[in-house]
């Protein structure tokens, strides 16, 4: 009888293991605190007050780096994150993903050059991220849209939109395109929500605008056709994930 109970215990335990499904939790912060949307309460390094209205981005090509240095790649993984759509903030890419023995998480911010092709997504919300073909095609890696108060306290809008960049000729026509996707690597930070284990991927919005480049919204009108600006923001966004 004891043997039977023991066996049953083992079976139940293994069943529990099989049903374990870990995932990723996407969070947002500003100055290190949880982000509050649509509140004109944040100050940039340059002293401008701003509020965050929308933040949407793609991440792809996830890999888990294990404690022993081995790498588990999540083949063809692409995920859309939207601060306003709760079901995009929890992601279970595999039925049997385990975060046990995971040291760090690596992913591509945006879509790599092979994956970033127009018409890939047919339906909203993903297809609303399209990047015009004239500017290189594919999809926005990120849309972060804010309102800020200028020196005269007037409301202004700024769009931090990153995607494929362009090289222009003297006539102002794009002759070459540049992929601005980059790799992010962060130590795994686990959290348990509703009994599920998640690896947290946090984006600190204030870092996006302040560090390492304090290049802010007033410097640009739109940045989608400005490779230099996108490069600067890409550097900041990497820091916003990794910092």
């Amino acid at each position, binding site marked *: 009888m004891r043997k039977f109970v023991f066996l049953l215990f083992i079976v139940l335990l293994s069943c529990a293991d099989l049903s374990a499904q870990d995932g990723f939790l996407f969070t947002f912060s500003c100055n290190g605190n949880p982000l509050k949307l649509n509140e004109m309460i944040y100050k940039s390094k340059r002293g401008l007050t701003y509020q965050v209205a929308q933040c949407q981005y793609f991440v792809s090509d996830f890999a888990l780096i294990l404690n022993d240095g081995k790498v588990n790649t999540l083949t063809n993984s692409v995920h859309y994150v939207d601060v306003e759509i709760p079901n995009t903030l929890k992601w279970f890419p595999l039925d049997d993903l385990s975060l046990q023995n995971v040291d760090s998480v690596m992913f591509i911010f945006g879509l790599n050059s092979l994956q970033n092709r127009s018409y890939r997504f047919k339906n909203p919300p993903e297809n609303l991220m*399209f990047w015009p073909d004239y500017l290189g095609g594919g999809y926005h890696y990120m849309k972060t849209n804010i309102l800020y108060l200028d020196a005269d306290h007037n409301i202004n809008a700024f769009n931090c939109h990153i995607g494929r960049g362009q090289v222009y000729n003297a006539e102002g026509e794009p002759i070459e395109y540049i992929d601005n996707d980059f790799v992010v690597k962060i130590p795994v930070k686990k959290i348990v929500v509703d009994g599920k284990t998640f690896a947290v991927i946090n984006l600190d919005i204030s870092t996006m605008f302040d560090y390492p480049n304090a290049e802010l919204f007033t410097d640009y009108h739109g940045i*989608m056709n400005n490779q230099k600006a996108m490069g600067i923001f890409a550097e900041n966004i990497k820091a916003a994930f990794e910092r």
Partner: protein
Amino acid sequence: MRKYFVFFLFVVVVCSCGNRLPQYSYEPVPYDLGVPFFPDSLNIPADNPMTQDGVRLGRYLFYDERLSGDPKRPMSCATCHKQENSFECGTADFPDGRPVGNSGKKTPNVMLPLINLVWNSNGYFWNGYINRESGKNIETTVPMAITAPHEMDGDIDRTVKLIKNDPFYRELFYKAFGTTDINIDLISKAVAQFVRSLVSFNSKFDRFMAGELQLTKSETRGLMLFTTEGADCFHCHGSPVLPLWTTNLFMNNAKDIDFEGQNDRSAITQNPLDKGKYRVPTLRNIEFTAPYMHDGRFKTLDDVLEFYNNGLKRSPYIDPLSINTNHGGMHLSDRDLQDLKAFLLTLSDTAFIHDLRFSNPWN
């Protein structure tokens, strides 16, 4: 002999009984929207799949002036939703773009075109009042239109009675729904099926995308302006990869600074941040759908372009995508505006507004 006569009578009775059974059958055939490059997520309720016979019946009802339920004040959906205006009312009969209902009341807003609605899952009407979250869909709008004072100002029971009394409809209803028990639900479902069948995808620009023709230099330049942050139309209105030419989102496009009394998106969500927000309308067939904006304040496309060029107004409620508001507008040159307009006119689908499948079947 008597025996034969009784048998003959029996045969006659059986045969006449047979005549009373429907001679038509209920064999629903799915309706094919036939659009190759649009989104594949469709807003079709599970209890009202589109069928060929359902769409056919809906077309007859859509154009049937008995829908108002009052033969003295006949009105159908098509009285205001006119095919030549992309199923808006146009300005020929209603110069301000706001139709007048049977009670003499005007509609609160101008109309939105009834095209490509099957690809919109984000709510209908300017403020999204009709939305799936509240259990409303296109079907809901049919009894609303029958009873609203600024529309048919009618009575649903009388409408149903008039439709029921026409033997012509019995076969159509049986073929569409497998019953001749006509009621408002089935009337609504059929009209909704027809409305969902109103798809436009054959504009000059569509044919350009299919490689069938070239755009002019001006149209190409207009497309370039449209899809860059120069004019920055694409974030709200789409691009060749978003061929509905609308995101179907709700946005405040910097028209106003005072939002008191507006029946805007905030009236639905109760969220003050949604003040001044209205549905982004499709730009398909924009040529046929003047006047423009929810209140029809702009009579022509040139007026609209001038507004976006120089008339944007700051408020705490502007959509953060409208970066041109920082400077009051796009500030494009006259040539740029002409090119932009030339491009917009390539979105006109003249095949759609003449498509016999969508025309009045009673003619």
